[in-house]
């Protein structure tokens, strides 16, 4: 059993669940404590020792079900597949076998009398040396099923079956009953072969589970945002959520380095009274790292909508890394969409910002107009702690860029970071006015893929606000 558990742990590791050797040992010890009697208890024993993140539990359950088959349920399933067993046929067979004292092959024995669970065990055992670890694609299933089947000695089974039928004939059984028995044996043989194929398919699923997902995630992170299909957008949400968690976790670790600072005279003196005025314990004034205020201004026109979507998702999932987040959306008219994020869950708020905000979504982008409106109405709300994150391709449709507005805004805030979902080679060509806005920005970054987006936000959270303190 221990080997089976270790193999299962291998599966978990392939599915990106981290399991350390000490946890593996714990799992063995725990399973020895509870035994295999109750499947759920056994599952809990493994889960509590191997899975330490609640978000991995679903993966664990799924793999567990693939790997530790519910043999009882399986036996029931096979019984159902075989149809109602004819007790008379069975009885007849049993009686005859006992009378004649036939020496049957183990496999025949299994086919005649075995329960589903025993058959499964036999198949699994024969799969040990069949090279199943090379199984990777669906197309290989047939090959491996045959290979597995070949490991059984079918000629012996056939010979046995022939012998049984001949014997029955000799004993003068009527043809109708003979046919029934033949039918029964054939059914069982077929069911067994089907079980072999199912076993191989399950094995494939076990191996491939999550592998594909990982590949997809990596591929998606580097895919240009404008080229995403609707399906990919849905998957991308998970990618972004994962990214947000990574950034947040890293931040928690980094915060521990904050424990240096000047002496806090008040607390140190207070504490020294206890020791006759001798400052035995020094208290340090903790430096409070100021979280940045963040304002995002997103172009939500068709061309860059995906980029805006993921930036909004990322920023709002990292809310607690900022002291305040406000978001604006524009095509040409600009409107604040923050209230949606305060009312609804992030996903719904994003949909609203991209489609339902009180702006005209069908006009042509006009960055100049949006910035000038922003400067006119929001300038007073800006301060030196605020960082502005602009997302847009700066394709201004030959309107007046009004770069003065952006410069004016820059004077009031800590910095402006511009993310451009268009490749750097296109900046300044055609109606792109990126070069005119760039001088007012502290950073201008190309942001064509989610991976690039992650880098920028990571920098923003970890390094950006240290600057200039």
């Amino acid at each position, binding site marked *: 059993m221990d080997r089976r558990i270790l193999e299962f742990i291998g599966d978990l590791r392939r599915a990106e669940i*981290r399991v*350390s050797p*000490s*946890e593996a040992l*714990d799992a063995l*010890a*725990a399973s020895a*404590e*509870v035994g295999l009697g*109750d499947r*759920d*208890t056994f599952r*809990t*024993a493994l*889960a*509590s*020792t191997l*899975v*330490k*993140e*609640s978000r991995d*539990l679903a993966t664990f359950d799924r793999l567990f079900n693939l790997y530790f088959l519910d043999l009882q349920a399986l036996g029931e399933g096979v019984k159902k597949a075989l149809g109602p067993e004819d007790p008379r046929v069975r009885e007849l067979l049993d009686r005859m076998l006992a009378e004649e004292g036939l020496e049957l092959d183990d496999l025949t024995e299994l086919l005649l009398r075995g329960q589903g669970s025993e058959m499964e065990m036999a198949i699994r055992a024969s799969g040990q040396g069949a090279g199943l670890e090379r199984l990777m694609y669906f197309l290989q299933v047939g090959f491996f099923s045959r290979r597995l089947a070949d490991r059984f000695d079918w000629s012996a089974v056939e010979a046995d079956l022939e012998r049984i039928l001949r014997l029955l004939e000799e004993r003068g059984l009527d043809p109708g009953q003979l046919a029934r028995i033949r039918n029964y044996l054939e059914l069982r043989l077929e069911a067994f072969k089907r079980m072999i194929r199912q076993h191989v398919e399950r094995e494939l699923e076990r191996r491939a589970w999550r592998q594909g997902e990982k590949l997809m995630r990596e591929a998606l992170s580097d895919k240009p945002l404008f080229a995403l299909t609707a399906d990919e957008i849905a998957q991308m949400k998970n990618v972004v959520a994962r990214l947000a968690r990574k950034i*947040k*976790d890293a931040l*928690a*670790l980094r915060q*521990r380095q904050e424990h240096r600072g000047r002496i806090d005279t008040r607390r140190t003196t207070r504490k020294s009274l*206890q*020791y*006759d005025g001798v400052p*035995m314990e020094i208290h340090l004034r903790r430096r409070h790292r100021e979280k940045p205020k963040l304002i995002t201004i997103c172009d939500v026109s068709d061309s860059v909508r995906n980029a805006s979507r993921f930036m909004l998702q990322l920023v709002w999932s990292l809310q607690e890394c900022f002291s305040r987040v406000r978001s604006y959306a524009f095509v040409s008219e600009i409107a604040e969409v923050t209230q949606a994020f305060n*009312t609804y*869950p992030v996903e719904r708020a994003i949909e609203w910002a991209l489609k339902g905000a009180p702006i005209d979504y069908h006009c042509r982008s006009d960055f100049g107009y949006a910035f000038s409106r922003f400067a006119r109405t929001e300038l007073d709300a800006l301060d030196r702690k605020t960082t502005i994150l602009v997302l847009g391709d700066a394709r201004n449709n030959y309107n007046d860029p009004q770069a003065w507005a952006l410069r004016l805004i820059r004077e009031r805030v800590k910095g402006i970071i511009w993310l451009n979902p268009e490749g750097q080679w296109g900046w300044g060509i055609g109606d792109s006015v990126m070069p005119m806005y760039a001088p007012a920005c502290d950073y201008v970054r190309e942001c064509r893929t989610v991976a690039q987006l992650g880098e920028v936000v990571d920098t923003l959270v970890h390094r950006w606000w240290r600057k200039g303190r």
Partner: protein
Amino acid sequence: MFQSVEEVQQRFREARYIASRRVATVVYLAARMGRPVLIEGPAGVGKTELAKTLSDVTGRRLIRLQCYEGLDEGKALYEWKYAKQLLYTQLLRERIGELIADAPSLPEAVGKIAGQEDAFFSFRFLSPRPLLQAILADEPVVLLVDEIDKAEPEFEAFLLEVLSDFQVSVPELGTVRAKHIPLVVLTSNNARELSDGLKRRCLHLFIDFPPPADELAIIRLKVPEVPAELAKAVVNAVQKIRAMDLRKLPSVSESLDWARSLVILNAQELDPAIVESTLSMLVKHEKDLERVRGALDKVLAE
């Protein structure tokens, strides 16, 4: 301590705690393997209660360490009673004078005082905090480290050290080793990620909102005054509210509070008026409250 998982379930039930098979299995394993249990899950599903019940059931004393930001070793492990030491030195000044009266030179006087150091650095002047208490205890105890995610990562590392070999070294006294390995329960609300080391060391248990049948059993057990029909209606409504998209979902503790308040108000069934007026027991955010009020007929539907 426990012979089987069923026994755990049975004895927890007698102590008025409904433990699912999963919970009971992990408790059983923790007791058998001497491992700490790390419990995660939403607030109010009975994480702390589990530790309390464990102490009840086993008859062990419960030592609780509540974590918070800024918790340090001094508050968790031990502190010297400096003030008391100083006071004693003052009071004993004469005795000390006598002691060194016949010392011919300064180094020898220092030597004599040094010879008495043990008198001052002894358990008499040590005030043990929860962790040291758990280690020093003469009989086995249950140690509850509550809301470990509130403490800083350094503290976690330190805790890990204590939990892995249950010994503590006090520089002046030497190493103190636990007489009995305590049963340790840690709880976390997932405010931040815990370190891998700590997770590796612990058995992990995730307690989610209980299935309807269990919740009904819990309400019947904890608030026996509530009529059977009403309890069912409460569970039904709570399940519906949990399916809604709210900021903070009502937990078991909230449904218990709600059931209790309904009993106090002498309600026989859930009619919209009474639900409306007691809803704040269940849903704690203004925005959430509005949404639930808006969907009240759906919530109360069978």
